[in-house]
């Protein structure tokens, strides 16, 4: 009996890997290795946490937007991030994990979210650069993930990418407007870029040589490009355009390599990256405190909704 069970397990794994090889999706209810399920729950839930924590640096500027139009645009963007968080939490839940478990992991500091959101949004230009740089980097990563083997994650990525393009463009449009504006606006844009450039490059994750989960995720069709590949694509596209606008890049070692046709940056401060990932960035404590407050402050609302629903059922 045991041999039969093992054989079925092996057969299942062979069929699973063949499906991925063919480019077919794995859907909820399909057999999958425990490790695939575990890795995806980790990856998708951390992606979801990033969306909702990402609402915070921009949410701060809603009441300080310089015009009603900018406020409406920013509000739409922040609402999108909330929606994206929901798409992703639900994709994670389809793998058999509860929302409460995921939220507890975030609030207890056990789950990670994208390191970029541990930086403060100090000026209005930060809102613009978050759109161009941070969402631009997210689009690079998420475009790759649209090909992910797990159906619900792949579908969430396609929908997020479509909406994220609006985020990217509205940020870019602001930068283009301000670099052609007053000296004060131009200075604000440059100062903000100097603070967001390096952390954005770190968004793509540690160098390939230090990325422990990548090999397995690639084998099972979740990732198809490496951290360094995506990072380099982003650098090449962004540096050219930023320099064309008359801005400078805060990197004295930056040079264009004619042979490879790539922009080569100076060394990335990986000590800073690991410090932020481990909880010692500028805003880690504040971000988690804000999420904890939101959870606590909302408790009476959630309880009221449950009480109302149960009362309706009792009288049905």
């Amino acid at each position, binding site marked *: 009996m045991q041999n039969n069970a093992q054989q079925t397990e092996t057969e299942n794994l062979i069929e699973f890997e063949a499906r991925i090889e063919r480019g077919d999706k794995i859907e909820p209810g399909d057999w999958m290795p425990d490790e695939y399920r575990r890795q995806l729950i980790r990856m998708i839930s951390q992606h979801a946490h990033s969306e909702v924590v990402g609402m915070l640096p921009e949410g701060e500027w809603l009441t300080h937007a310089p015009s009603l139009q900018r406020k409406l645009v920013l509000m739409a963007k922040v609402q999108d991030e909330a929606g994206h968080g929901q798409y992703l939490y639900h994709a994670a839940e389809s793998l058999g994990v509860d929302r409460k478990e995921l939220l507890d992991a975030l609030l207890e500091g056990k789950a990670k979210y994208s390191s970029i959101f541990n930086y403060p949004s100090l000026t209005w230009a930060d809102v613009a650069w978050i759109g161009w740089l941070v969402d631009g980097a997210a689009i690079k990563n998420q475009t790759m993930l649209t090909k992910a083997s797990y159906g619900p994650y792949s579908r969430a990525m396609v929908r997020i990418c479509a909406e994220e393009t609006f985020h990217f463009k509205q940020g870019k449009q602001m930068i283009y407007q301000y670099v052609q504006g007053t000296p004060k606006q131009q200075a604000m844009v440059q100062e903000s870029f100097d603070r967001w450039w390096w952390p954005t490059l770190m968004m793509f994750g540690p160098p390939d040589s230090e990325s422990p989960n990548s090999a397995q995720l690639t084998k099972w069709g979740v990732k198809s490009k490496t951290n360094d590949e995506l990072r380099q694509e982003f650098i090449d596209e962004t540096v050219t355009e930023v320099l*064309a606008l008359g801005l400078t890049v805060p990197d004295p070692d930056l040079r264009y390599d004619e042979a490879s046709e790539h922009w080569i940056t100076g060394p990335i401060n990986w000590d800073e990256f690991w410090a932020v990932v481990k909880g010692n960035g500028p805003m880690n404590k504040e971000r988690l405190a804000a999420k904890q407050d939101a959870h606590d402050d909302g408790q009476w609302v*959630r309880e009221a909704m449950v009480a109302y629903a149960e009362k309706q059922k009792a009288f049905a």
Partner: protein
Amino acid sequence: MTDTQWPRYEVFKQDKPNKPHEAIGTVHATDDELALQNARDVHVRRPDCHSLWVASETKILKRTAQQIEQNPTQQDAEPQTGYSQTDQLETYQIFCKKTLRRTMVAAVHVGTVDASTPQHALEIARGSTDLVADPNKIYVWWVVPDRDIIRSEDENIASLFEPAIGKTYKQQSRYGLIQPEAQT
């Protein structure tokens, strides 16, 4: 139900009147009315939407082709329709996943079947070419009692879905191509 554990509903969106409803994701909600509202807020921030359906996941029988093959008469984990087997027939809505390639939807509405239980409805759907050309080429089947589907009302189309259409500032196409050469 606790304040941090809410029931989950599948959401089905119909983009235009002549297109089928498509399963596009799930929402949590404390009741049916809120489920529709949450479905609109999470899944219809942008056009197009003509109709939304939601159904509690506890009412949906889902079977993959793999599950059917390995366990054709699986009786455990039946949905809680609160319905005991009698000779009475009721209407079931059937949804199918027709491809394992990348698509935007988990399942597409293909039609209705009258049956006495969800399992019975699934057997009828799988044995017929009325709903799909080749039922053997379906990867996932969903069966939902019609009475367990909560639908947006036609008279509410304007108030539910028009705001998404009017707010063009959140459409990426409105921003066009932003490049250095275009700015002079």
